[in-house]
């Protein structure tokens, strides 16, 4: 018999709560299709991750992000029967978030965009993961400056960098989220790094000019 997580919590049945925490997302999807209360488990697993992700790629206000997030979860619930078991649930829900961000935030064209990267520690992962270029940048730039550089990148490049280095997704997952071939994802990441490097060079040149003056 299925017992909803709400009832478990109400009954303080710790053992069963622990049981549910060991279940995979895909198993909880199947359970949610039988009992909607299990959906709370998925929401709780992804609430924080998706909030950060939406914030990073959209640069929207807190309210915008909350609205989008709610929309993502409702939309995912409506389409739960369309979830492809060949994918990871995380890729599927990130894809929905990506699409919602595009449809929500492209409408708000007049609003100035401020891309936020919360947590400098995670931001530095970019530097740590991007090998020589990153190490060089780490020596020369502060987290604040790297944030400014990322803000200046094209949206498509910023998003792959966020997924690769901040969300720690592999190529396959990024391919499933953005619905692009893996080869294209690799190309986008390389171009994003290149654009990132060009931006840093521009900054260096500006600094040199300022010093001469």
């Amino acid at each position, binding site marked *: 018999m299925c017992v909803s997580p709400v009832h478990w919590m109400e009954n303080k049945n710790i053992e069963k709560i622990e049981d549910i925490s060991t279940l995979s997302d895909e198993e909880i999807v199947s359970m949610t299709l039988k009992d909607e209360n299990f959906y709370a488990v998925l929401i709780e697993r992804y609430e924080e991750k998706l909030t950060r992700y939406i914030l990073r790629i959209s640069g929207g206000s807190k309210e915008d992000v909350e609205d989008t997030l709610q929309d993502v979860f409702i939309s995912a619930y409506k389409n739960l*029967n369309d979830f492809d078991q060949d994918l990871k649930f995380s890729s599927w829900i990130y894809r929905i978030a990506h699409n919602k961000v595009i449809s929500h935030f492209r409408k708000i064209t007049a609003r100035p965009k401020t891309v936020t990267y919360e947590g400098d520690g995670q931001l530095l992962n970019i530097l740590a993961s991007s090998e020589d270029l990153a190490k060089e940048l780490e020596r020369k730039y502060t987290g604040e400056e790297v944030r400014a550089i990322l803000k200046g990148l094209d949206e498509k490049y910023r998003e792959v960098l966020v997924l690769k280095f901040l969300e720690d997704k592999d190529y396959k997952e990024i391919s499933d989220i953005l619905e692009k071939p893996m080869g294209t994802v690799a190309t986008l990441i390389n171009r994003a790094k290149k654009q990132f490097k060009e931006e840093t060079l521009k900054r260096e040149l500006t600094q040199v000019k300022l010093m001469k003056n």
Partner: protein
Amino acid sequence: MTKLSEDILGKIKHDHIVPAARWRFLLKSYVFWGLLMVSVLLGSLSFSVIVHIIDFRDLNVFNQVHGNFFTSTVMLLPYFWFLSVMLFASVAYYNWKHTRLGYRFKRRWIVSGSIALSVLLGSVLYALGMGNQIDMLMSKNMPFYDKSKREARSELWMRPDNGLLVGKVVNVDPADDSITIKDETGQDWQIDEKNVQHEPQSVPKKGKIIKIVGKKEGDHTFAASEIRKCGNCQSDEEADSTDTKNAEKNGKDLDHDGDGE
């Protein structure tokens, strides 16, 4: 429970939101797969018509009249079918992209895969005679198509001064090694075929349309050095055959071509 999960579950319950039925997603998926297959099939049929209507032996005739085969109106219909193949390849691409795994392949692979499949399947369909069937169907039902076909044929082959002639056989005289043809303008030509080595399949028969390479000898006489069958003229030949049958049915005099039979 977090506030968000409470809010969302509350909304789901309050608004009676339920996951959409699985069959709806399956149906959508099947529709795209079905349209994908239809577009590949239509692309294949288009390719089979291309193979049917392009007669590459006409290339050497173009050299003879100093023309450019690929920019002539002779290629108008093949280009029409090429466009058709490209159109269906694009439709196939669109449908493929909407399948679950569509995004995993690059556009160039999907489009070239679809074209390759059309070429392969189209060749099979051509071998089964589908190219001919569709060409005839189009000729019968689309006047502009039929007109283009005739114009292309006339442009290349109605050049008696250049040694090229096309027309329908109205009389065959084996004793005299000569045949009579009627060209597109209704003009009769007496063809001397003494010097012709016929391909087995192109021995002139009454009602068939033939292409002749040779030399104009008089206003209505022509000495043939080569006679070719017309690969995509069946619609005209059939039209004639149908007319003849109808005429026979009505008991009319069939000898309307003035060949003295």
